[in-house]
């Protein structure tokens, strides 16, 4: 009895893990499921506040300001394409943040004065948002 109980538990766990794997595999390309480090995430939030991204975006974790010229970044980790056009990958996001018009010609978001490292941290923060 004992051993068959354990067997069932193991089976259930394996199935659950499999299901999670399938669901998350459906959700995003592999690269966006990387786990950013906590340090990068908190540096990212600091960089967002320092650069004043909030003057155009509502961003979870930023109490003020909540500008509305740009789209809300709530649930951004689930967005399929950056700005409706670019693959949602950390590298692409980081370069979009630094200079949106350069990689999406005509984008209304102006280039932002953040360093490459800051842009990567900001990307980590935006992917770390757990809104689902």
């Amino acid at each position, binding site marked *: 009895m004992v051993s068959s109980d354990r067997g069932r538990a193991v089976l259930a766990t394996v199935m659950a893990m499999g299901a999670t794997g399938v669901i998350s595999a459906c959700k995003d390309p592999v690269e966006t499921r990387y786990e950013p480090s906590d340090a990068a995430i908190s540096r990212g939030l600091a960089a967002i506040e320092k650069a004043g991204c909030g*003057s*155009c975006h509502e961003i979870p974790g930023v109490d003020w300001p909540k*500008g509305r010229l740009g789209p809300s970044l709530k649930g951004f980790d689930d967005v399929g394409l950056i700005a409706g056009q670019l693959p949602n990958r950390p590298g692409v996001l980081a370069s979009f943040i630094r200079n949106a018009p*350069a990689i999406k010609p005509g984008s209304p978001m102006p*280039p932002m*004065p953040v360093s490459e490292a800051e842009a990567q941290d900001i990307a980590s923060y935006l992917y770390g948002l757990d809104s689902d």
Partner: protein
Amino acid sequence: MDWTVTDALWGWPPPVLDPAGPYSAQVTTLSWALFALGVVVTAVVIVALWVAIKGPPRWKAKLGGERAIWIGGVAFPGVVLTALLIWGLTLTASLTEPIRGDEMRIRVTGEMWWFRVQYLDADGVVVMQDANEIHIPVDTPVVLELESADVIHSFWVPHLSGKKDMIPGRRTLLRIEADRAGEFGGVCAEYCGGQHALMGFVAVAHEPDAWQAWRADRIATLNRAQSPIAPTAQRNSIDAAGDPAEADIPARYDARRGYDLFMETGCAACHRIAGSEANGMAGPDLTHIASRRTLGAGILPNHRGTLIGWIGDSQSIKPGNRMPSYDRLSADELGHIAAFLELQK
């Protein structure tokens, strides 16, 4: 630039305990004295309480006697508070003394919710106008003539001096002085309506050389005869220097187009830019907006992104402020205006 007032006033030690000049040093001395006295009085009260509850009966009787009340309840506070008042007022008297001879004078007017800044000559005539930023030379006392355009505000730059109310219809004086070069955050310290918490400014203290250069530069802008648009060649080099990637899209934002939009969409009715037809006085002077450390009265860093964000949607950033949101302008139009304002160093 990523300087804002909040960052400047945050951290340890708090600016009130970190004076950067003689006037604020006096305020700090007073603060410490009050704090020390508070500690002594608290200790005396605790001891008295202990005596009243657990002390020997003879002491208890004394504490409950009429004599104790006369001494501890009337004489002690009377003497201490009077002495403190006199000492405090004499210590800080120099902050608000009448203007002496040829002291440097700046008029600062509190407005809902920003600060108008006017540099005066010895006769009190306005020489230069600015907003939300006050420039002073180091080691020089500067008299601020404080006024208000609407409700009561209070001027406070804790590193450099004490607080002083700005009262409608009155002129109050406050001296500030910095003994080191630097940027010091200031705020309105009297509730003045919805956006009181977003009403700040920066005081910048310059070494003597830098001060002379700053002043000469400002006077030169004042006397410029030509329009505030730099020649195209210079403009492109500014763009290219700002961000190399910017050079890829040189034609995207056009400062001349921005100038026209600034004049046509009504900005000029509220804002002044020296040397142009823009002569409005309802909002902050924008003659030197590009060299300001902050936007929106000390609250945002100042760069193209925040500039566009502010012009397009200042009502989301600072709800109820007296500038309308220009969300009817397209992203490119906002960019043109920002590019034009970026030339106003």
